[in-house]
């Protein structure tokens, strides 16, 4: 099966940038958490204080799941790392499956492969082998992080296995989506919706009383129920094994039967002309991005609504002043009040709005790589106007995401009788924008200067800045070094006041970078794929 092996190797190579980025993230995160915990909570007393207050906080379970043991370094790491990275592995599995199984097909390369002597079954198995290789790399990276962070080898291997067990299940979801969807984009949307549902089930199970059973309905819940370092239950591994086998088998059966380049769902190949939003390149770009922007806004809004609803479970009872200071090291600030909690979690909307900017710059780059930009620039279209139009759409989308998050968090809190001021919550939303605009400007500059790698660089910069904000102070880095990341300069609105000077500086940096981007873009050649 030489050709199949070549195909698998090709798929692994195609995915290398994503795999390596995820592996770095996994290794860094799983190294930092045990080290940081030991540093911040050196004594049993301090750990007990942490466990009884911060750890029992239902709102935090949204991200990390249900804690089982917060008094040991390993138990804390299992809670803090396992839950978060399981979400990342879910995304990884989906992306890997759609890339290996559908992107090749959409580009027409798979026709070339199947026109050779390779049977379909081998092509499918080659794609699976490539995804499996990615999962093994993630497992090794996470394991290495834990062991370097001082956790025992056996338990770390099991914890990393629990996290990575989500990959094959979500790859199965992605593989099945690839069989139904008529194109890669639709496959990603279908698979993304399914993974979002699986995440929502875990969130409800971990935060709402009486819904704990829902954990058994989602691979993210299974990863928790494996209970690494607390009360290991390796038999639970049968669930992801059976589920992924069933999903991948079903997808494989369909893949062997369907026409290549099509899905079980019909593609709409023709339509009556709709002439709205065709007046300018910017209008047309908005038309193309509309669906994606609605998904971003709705997704962020739904998340904000949930956060608002559960913010009423926050109380400051029993938290000592000294513990609160310790909590501040985790970046949590005055998390023990609903307003503090909302302010704490809104850093994730700063992140979302920043990533949205990167995604829009990436979409602009796609228009260049696919050649449509040349079609436009051969018309009387000014380069700077084209790029500033795309940046305008990105900025507008960031405003929509941020403000709707603020308003929906307010609405969610109000529905539970938590009274936050609507104006302050709007401010909390707007507070996400300066950092997002900074990153948008920097992403545009990266794109203008290094077109092929610009979007990836921007994503990497946002991820690095965000991680540094999470762990910089935990590791005891000096204040000025922590403050280098824009995320550290975002005030915790509504718990704190909006920091106008910091916001002005961030917006100014973003504007300067955007201006430099326009100038650099005006001077360079168009660059193909």
């Amino acid at each position, binding site marked *: 099966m030489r050709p199949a092996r070549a195909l698998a190797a090709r798929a692994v190579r195609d995915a290398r940038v994503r795999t390596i980025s995820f592996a770095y993230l996994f290794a860094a995160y799983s190294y930092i958490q045990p080290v940081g915990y030991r540093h911040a909570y050196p004594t049993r007393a301090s750990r007990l204080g942490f466990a009884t207050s911060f750890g029992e906080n239902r709102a935090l379970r949204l991200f990390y799941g249900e804690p089982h043991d917060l008094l040991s370094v390993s138990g804390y790491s299992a809670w803090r790392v396992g839950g978060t990275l399981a979400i990342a592995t879910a995304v990884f599995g989906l992306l890997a499956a759609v890339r290996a199984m559908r992107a090749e097909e959409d580009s027409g390369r798979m026709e070339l492969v199947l026109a050779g002597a390779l049977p379909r079954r081998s092509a499918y198995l080659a794609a699976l082998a490539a995804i499996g290789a990615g999962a093994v790399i993630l497992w090794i990276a996470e394991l290495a992080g834990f062991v370097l962070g001082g956790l025992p080898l056996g338990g770390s291997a099991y914890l990393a296995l629990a996290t990575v067990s989500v990959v094959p299940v979500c790859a199965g979801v992605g593989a099945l989506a690839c069989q139904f969807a008529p194109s890669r984009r639709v496959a990603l949307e279908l698979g993304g919706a399914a993974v979002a549902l699986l995440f929502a089930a875990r969130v409800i199970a971990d935060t709402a009383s009486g819904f704990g059973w829902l954990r058994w309905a989602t691979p993210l819940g299974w990863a928790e129920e494996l209970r690494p370092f607390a009360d290991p239950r390796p038999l639970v591994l049968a669930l992801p094994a059976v589920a992924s086998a069933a999903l991948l088998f079903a997808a494989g059966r369909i893949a062997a039967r369907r026409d290549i380049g099509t899905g079980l769902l019909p593609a709409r190949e023709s339509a009556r002309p709709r002439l709205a939003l065709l007046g300018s390149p910017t209008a047309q770009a908005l038309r193309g991005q509309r669906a994606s922007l609605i998904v971003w806004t709705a997704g962020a809004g739904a998340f904000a609504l949930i956060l608002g609803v559960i913010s009423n479970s926050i109380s400051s009872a029993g938290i000592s002043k000294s513990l609160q200071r310790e909590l501040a090291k985790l970046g949590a600030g005055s998390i023990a009040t609903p307003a503090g909690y909302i302010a704490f979690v809104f850093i994730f909307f700063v992140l979302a709005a920043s990533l949205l900017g990167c995604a829009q710059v990436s979409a602009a780059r796609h228009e260049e790589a696919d050649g449509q930009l040349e*079609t436009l620039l051969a018309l009387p279209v000014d380069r700077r106007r084209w790029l500033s139009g795309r940046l305008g759409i990105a900025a507008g989308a960031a405003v929509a995401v941020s403000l709707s998050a603020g308003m929906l968090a307010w609405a969610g809190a109000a529905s539970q009788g938590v009274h936050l001021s609507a104006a302050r919550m709007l401010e909390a939303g707007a507070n996400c924008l300066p950092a997002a605009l900074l990153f948008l400007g920097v992403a545009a500059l990266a794109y203008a200067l290094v077109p092929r790698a610009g979007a990836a660089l921007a994503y990497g910069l946002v991820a690095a800045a965000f991680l540094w904000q999470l762990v910089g102070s935990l590791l005891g880095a000096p204040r000025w070094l922590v403050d280098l990341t824009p995320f550290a300069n975002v005030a915790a609105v509504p718990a704190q006041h909006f920091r106008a000077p910091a916001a002005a500086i961030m917006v100014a940096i973003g504007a300067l970078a955007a201006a430099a981007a326009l100038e650099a873009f005006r001077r360079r050649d168009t660059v193909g794929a």
Partner: protein
Amino acid sequence: MGAGVAAVIATEGLTKRYGDTLALDSLDLSVAQGEVYGYLGPNGSGKTTTIRLLLGLHRPSAGRAELFGLDSWRDAVLAHRRVAYVAGEPSLWPALTAAETLEFLARVRGGVDPVYREVLVERFALESSKKIRALSKGNRQKVALVAALSSRADLLILDEPTSGLDPLMEVAFRDSVLEAKERGQTVFLSSHILSEVEALCDRVGILRAGRLVDSGTLAQLRHLRAQVIDVTFAGAPPSLEPLSGVTVAPNGHNTLRFEVTGAVEGLLAALGRHRIVTLRSREPSLEEIFLHHYDGSSGDVHAPG
């Protein structure tokens, strides 16, 4: 080109390097108003690079290019009001239908002849309600051609526009270019399909490895080049003494093909001593002119297109 005639396209020492590769080497080109100019060269000879420079998509490493007296790079937007372009593989927006694409391109251009557009849609048998993603390469090319031709731009820049078209549509394309010519539009047609250039073009430039190796009217190029003489002998072809300016190659049973540059007297004298059944002489096709420029030493032809 004579002085005083306003050139639609003019380049002077136009040069483009990509890293170490010299894609276009000091190109001097002039296309007058109303001309149909054929731009010939094999893949990778620099045709598309030239067009990218003319359209201000890429910036010259040296020299300059002008459209209508406007600098191609600096005044690109102004110049493009009078230009329509069809790429070799047109990149359009997969989610738009053909009709939406035509409308979008017309609005961005700011001017289109809607009546003529309908004529073209009919002529090219365009399926207007189909989405671009559902169209084959040739059908996408038809959309781009209709958009460009219906703009009635003063200059049409066409980069291998028929590479995906079937023979019927090639006829439609030729009719449309001749109509454009009648209206006084200037056409810059890059191609490696020689019959197309022969049928349409007033003048031809031949590009090889980034250099313009020849240019002129078809008549001028023929004058410069060989005659082709096929001679069928009564028996096995004789081996002739080498003659200067004559190449010979077997061409089927008992037949030799001679290519003669300059006078044919020497060859006729040599043939007179043999029994000949038929002798056919003709002007070389553009294909043969083309091959003449690229045969033998084509190993170094690899500049990016």
